[in-house]
């Protein structure tokens, strides 16, 4: 398709019904609207879980908020992996999705976990870091982990869960922190020897907010904790921390289910078109002011796409040809920004993206330091490699809304 330039083609006359209309030739080749290559996209929407116990790890849930349901309950990420690289606080659980790859045996069960530091200032620093070249190890405040298991494994039965309330995993996992319930609880409370913590900060917070009183009771009365052995608590009691995000299940829907719409009625009479005389650059001014620049155009098509299903929080499309839906045209990565897989050195491919609607559902506040993003895009190893680490870190790209308004 050729694009037209101003001086090459003259105005054409076109007669429609009674009115004679001078039709304007397009001066600029606008963004191709025939994006007929409809990628197959799966959407994730938020749903209240029928019962919290349906979100336990042996039922392989896709969920957001609350605490993660670790697929491999023993070898959890620790140390540097569980912390924000800027403020050294443990990261907070954002969401996890169950995304198996049926073709390979080793990826029969496959989960992706996303953790984020709830401080916006860390996210702004993270923005700088993500643009760095891949030779340097960037510091991130948002991390994604992938964990996969074959069908026959030590943790879950090879038979599908019956979902009748009696399912149990095969073994008990590691104990989790009593405060955040997210990370492994390696440190033990020296008083009662029951409460476990992932870091000192959480121990201090738990102590202040009530453990101080309980610790004493536990030592002396040996109050029954659900499992006397050090291990995870399988029942979903609320963890002590109250600043975790509310827990929801992510329901899976196909985007094309929303596509069927009533076709527009192009019944608008062409005869009401009126004569239009010579246009000039003032016309272009109007267009510039009111129509688009790159950013506005991306934003417009972004809005149009999400309007099919406004409550979507996640877009999944693990396809080589797939492209994420970018709200803005600035801040997009190029091929050089996306590194290779850390473990197998293969290339990464786009897998899914998190939409900003999730902030609304999680009830994130709207002050100056609260989280806000345009979109978060996750790239994973194309081959979904096996490596010694159980939870493999993948690459994440955040596109933020610009802080200064773009006119």
């Amino acid at each position, binding site marked *: 398709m*050729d694009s037209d330039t101003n001086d090459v*083609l003259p105005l*054409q006359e076109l007669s429609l019904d009674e009115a004679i209309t001078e*039709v*304007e*030739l*397009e001066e600029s080749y606008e963004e191709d*609207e025939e994006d007929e290559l409809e990628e*197959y*996209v799966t959407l994730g929407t938020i749903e209240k879980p029928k019962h919290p116990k349906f979100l336990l790890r042996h039922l*392989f*849930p896709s969920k957001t908020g609350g605490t993660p349901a670790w697929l491999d309950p023993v070898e959890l990420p620790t140390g540097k992996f569980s912390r924000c690289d800027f403020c050294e606080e443990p990261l907070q659980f954002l969401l996890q999705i169950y*995304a*198996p*790859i*049926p073709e390979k045996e080793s990826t029969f069960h496959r989960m992706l976990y996303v953790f984020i530091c709830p401080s916006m200032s860390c996210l702004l620093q993270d923005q700088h870091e993500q643009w760095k070249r891949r030779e340097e190890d960037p510091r991130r405040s948002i991390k994604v982990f992938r964990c996969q298991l074959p069908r026959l494994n030590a943790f879950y039965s090879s038979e*599908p869960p019956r*979902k009748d309330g009696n399912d149990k995993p095969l073994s008990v996992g590691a104990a989790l922190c009593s405060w955040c319930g997210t990370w492994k609880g390696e440190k033990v409370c020296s008083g009662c020897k029951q409460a476990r913590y992932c870091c000192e900060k959480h121990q201090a917070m*738990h102590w202040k907010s*009530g453990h101080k009183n*309980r610790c004493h*009771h*536990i030592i002396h009365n040996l*109050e029954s*904790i659900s499992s006397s052995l050090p291990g995870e608590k399988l029942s979903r*009691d*609320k963890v002590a921390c*109250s600043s975790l995000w509310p827990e929801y299940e992510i329901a*899976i829907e*196909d985007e094309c289910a*929303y596509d069927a719409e009533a076709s*527009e*009625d192009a019944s608008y009479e062409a005869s009401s*078109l*009126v004569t*239009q005389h010579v*246009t*000039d650059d*003032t*016309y272009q*001014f*109007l267009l510039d*002011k*009111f*129509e688009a620049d790159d950013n506005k155009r991306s934003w417009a098509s972004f809005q*149009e796409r999400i*309007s099919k299903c*406004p*409550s979507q929080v996640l877009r*999944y499309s*693990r396809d080589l040809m797939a492209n994420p839906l970018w709200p803005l045209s600035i801040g997009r990565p190029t091929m050089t920004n996306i590194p290779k897989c850390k473990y197998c050195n293969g290339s990464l491919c786009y897998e899914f993206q998190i939409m*900003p609607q999730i902030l*609304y559902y999680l009830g994130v*506040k*709207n*002050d*100056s330091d*609260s989280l806000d993003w345009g979109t978060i895009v996750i790239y994973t190893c194309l081959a979904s490699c096996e490596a010694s680490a159980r939870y493999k870190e993948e690459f994440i790209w955040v596109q933020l809304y610009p802080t200064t*308004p*773009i006119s």
Partner: protein
Amino acid sequence: MAERGAGDRGGFGRGFGRGRGDRGRGDRGRGGRRGGGQRDEEEKWVPVTKLGRLVKEGKITSLEQIYLHSLPVKEHQIVDTLLGNRLKDEVMKIMPVQKQTRAGQRTRFKAFVVVGDSDGHVGLGVKCAKEVATAIRGAIILAKLSVVPVRRGYWGNKIGKPHTVPCKVTGKCGSVTVRLVPAPRGAGIVAARVPKKVLQFAGIEDVYTSSRGSTKTLGNFVKVSFSLIINFYIFIEIRVIVDFAFCILHLIHFVSLQATFDCLMKTYGFLTPDLWLDTRFSRSPFQEYTDLLAKPTKAILIENTERIEA
């Protein structure tokens, strides 16, 4: 979690599987619940930006707070929520534009839509699409995003409500210049057909206009008026707001519409003596609520932990 896995997975959930294999079975599962595109217009709006979330919560009650801090409005539902049903829209012109291709001409339709309430807010939107209805819908959304405030003033005695432009203001777009001159009450809108409609929607009751240049070039005419109104509003004096509903239905001279719009945009950019006082800067909505929410909450978590230990 529903039992719809492929045969080799037995009863295990499909999860977010690869799309390719499932292309044929597009609309099964929970997608069917929505029905074939049963997208009701009142479907809940889920905000995507922080400003949207604030508006949805109700922390921001008027557009003026947004104008005060020059916050960019990215979601048209924000304007919908704040202006509500006062906002009317009208299609000004549908213009076919053509593009030469090897196989003939490809015609698309360009829609110009103006939205506004009759109380000082107007917006103008332009959208091109293959079908007229799509273009109109897109243009309405763009128009809502570009809503600006308009300022009104008095001709003489400051009795009653403002009814005319605050001062002589002129706007220019291309060769068209439009000049709005304050008029006494009862004068009515003395203007050509095109700007008259615009100013009627703006709520300016009396004004003299004088236009010059090739006013047949409609875009210019409109732009000038719009820029005039915007100029009045650069300083924060929201007392006088010109109704800016630019809904011109039979917009023959489209370019002059631009000129008028330009005029009206300038109304708030014009420094008059009553704006000489120093402005008292207030906190942006994002800041304001930080303090509200940063109130230290006591450790009432003691009760919570009682239940946890059990």
